[in-house]
């Protein structure tokens, strides 16, 4: 019961406490408007290059933009605690670490889903994307799973936040790599072979492909495999990230370096 409370209530409280600065004046430009312009930029580059349809870029960039809230927020869960000098207090509590850290990811997934869904709907409306009425629910599922899998990667990022001082730089680098590797803007088949292999293990690759197939008229049963792989990637990254956080905590205690990145 205590663990459940830490997971749900603690996770939500922590999110509100660490992101007190995320006011509408910051949220709207950064997470509502910016993805729309990212979509428009790549859609226009795509037109200029004569490569893919506008829908291709709307879907790819809308889903991929979930990386901003997912990566940055998860990293801030460690870096923000350290900045506020509360990391030590968190780590001396007897609370179980699994609900403590994983519970913090639930609001992040929700926010990532909202950001991607909003960009998908508005970006789609701007370019006139037609979505079959029955596809919206499966698209929402694929989008939510994509946000989940990227949050898993964000947990790895959070673990690295114990030893990397410039966490926002690290998140920006990962964001850029996701933009290149996940097929958001370049069809995965057009990438070199080694990049195709890497993209298979990246969050978003399968989620984006699933949404594209759903918009093209595919049924949920056609994309279960893709959504399942996307979820599995999220679980693997999440487990790896959790293990990394625990390892970093032990190292931090041993060398007294918790407050020093």
């Amino acid at each position, binding site marked *: 019961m205590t663990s459940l409370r830490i997971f749900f209530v603690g996770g939500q409280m922590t999110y509100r406490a660490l992101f007190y600065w995320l*006011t509408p*004046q*910051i949220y709207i*430009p*950064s997470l509502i*408007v*910016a993805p729309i*312009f*990212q979509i*428009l*930029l*790549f859609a*226009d*580059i*795509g*037109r*200029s*290059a*004569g*490569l893919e349809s506008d829908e291709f870029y709307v879907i790819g960039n809308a889903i991929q933009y979930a990386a901003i809230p997912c990566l940055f927020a998860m990293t801030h869960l460690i870096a923000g605690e350290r900045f506020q000098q509360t990391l030590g207090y968190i780590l001396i509590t007897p609370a179980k670490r699994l609900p403590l850290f994983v519970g913090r990811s639930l609001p992040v997934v929700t926010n990532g889903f909202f950001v991607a869904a909003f960009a998908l709907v508005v970006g789609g409306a701007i370019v006139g994307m037609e979505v079959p009425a029955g596809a919206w629910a499966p698209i929402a599922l694929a989008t939510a799973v994509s946000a989940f899998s990227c949050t898993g990667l964000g947990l790895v990022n959070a673990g690295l936040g114990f030893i990397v001082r*410039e966490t*926002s*730089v690290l998140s*920006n*680098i990962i964001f*850029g*790599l996701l*933009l*290149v590797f996940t097929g958001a*803007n*370049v*069809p995965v088949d*057009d*990438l070199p072979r080694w990049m195709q292999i890497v993209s298979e293990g990246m969050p978003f690759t399968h989620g984006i492909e699933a949404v594209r197939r759903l918009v093209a008229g595919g049924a949920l049963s056609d994309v279960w495999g893709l959504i399942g792989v996307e979820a599995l990637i999220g679980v693997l990254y999440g487990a790896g990230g959790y293990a990394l956080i625990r390892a970093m905590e032990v190292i931090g205690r041993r060398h007294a370096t918790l407050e020093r990145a």
Partner: protein
Amino acid sequence: MARLLAIGWLFHLKNLTNSLFFVLISVLQPVIFATIAFFMFDAGRRSGGLLYAALGAGLMGIWSSTLFGSGGAIQWQRWQGTLEVIVAAPARFLWVMLPLTVSTASIGLYSIVATLFWGRVFFGVPLEFEHPWLFALALPVTVLSLGLLGLVLASTFVLYRQASAFSNLLEYPIWLVTGLLVPLSLLPGWVEPLSWVLAPTWGMEAVRNAALGGEVWPGIGMCVLLGTIYLALGALFMQNFERLARQRATLSLT
């Protein structure tokens, strides 16, 4: 004054080079965008697009470093506790801030070098410029005009408490409306007049024409003209900022 500008520019250039954030914005981000553009143009079989993309991505980096560096210039001085010292110095506030904003644009030169190097080594982009000397002239003129635009950003963004969010908001739209990676002819007609008052549009035209062929001087001329206007506006806004801050005793307040 020339000494003040030169030393200030060099100092801030060295200072910004030590920032991992700026190195990322100037080198890695343009390289990532250039990579995507290379793949897209290559897969789309667009002929002659790779050098076009490399230069466009490089200019994108110059804009980003100007936007984030200049947009937050006064705020950073405030956080570091140096704003009062700068305002109290005998030199005019404008001449102390100008080298800072020009240096934020100058650090974007790393972007051009990075995207051209990346394109040449990994994508075989031919580095054969039609007018190499004009290219060597167009580039610093473009950087200077962006630095002067940065002066306007610095003096106006300071009025907005969430300047960094505002910077996030302006990055993609300016990349788009100034035609850095997309020809302006592909955009709606109402975008074009907007692009005329933005130095990156003309800088891009000058740099691209110098590299790929075409008229270079009109672009250079427009950069000089717009730069002069930006300087006048920046001076006016800086003076206004300093006057209000002194009157209301709000210099160190965020």
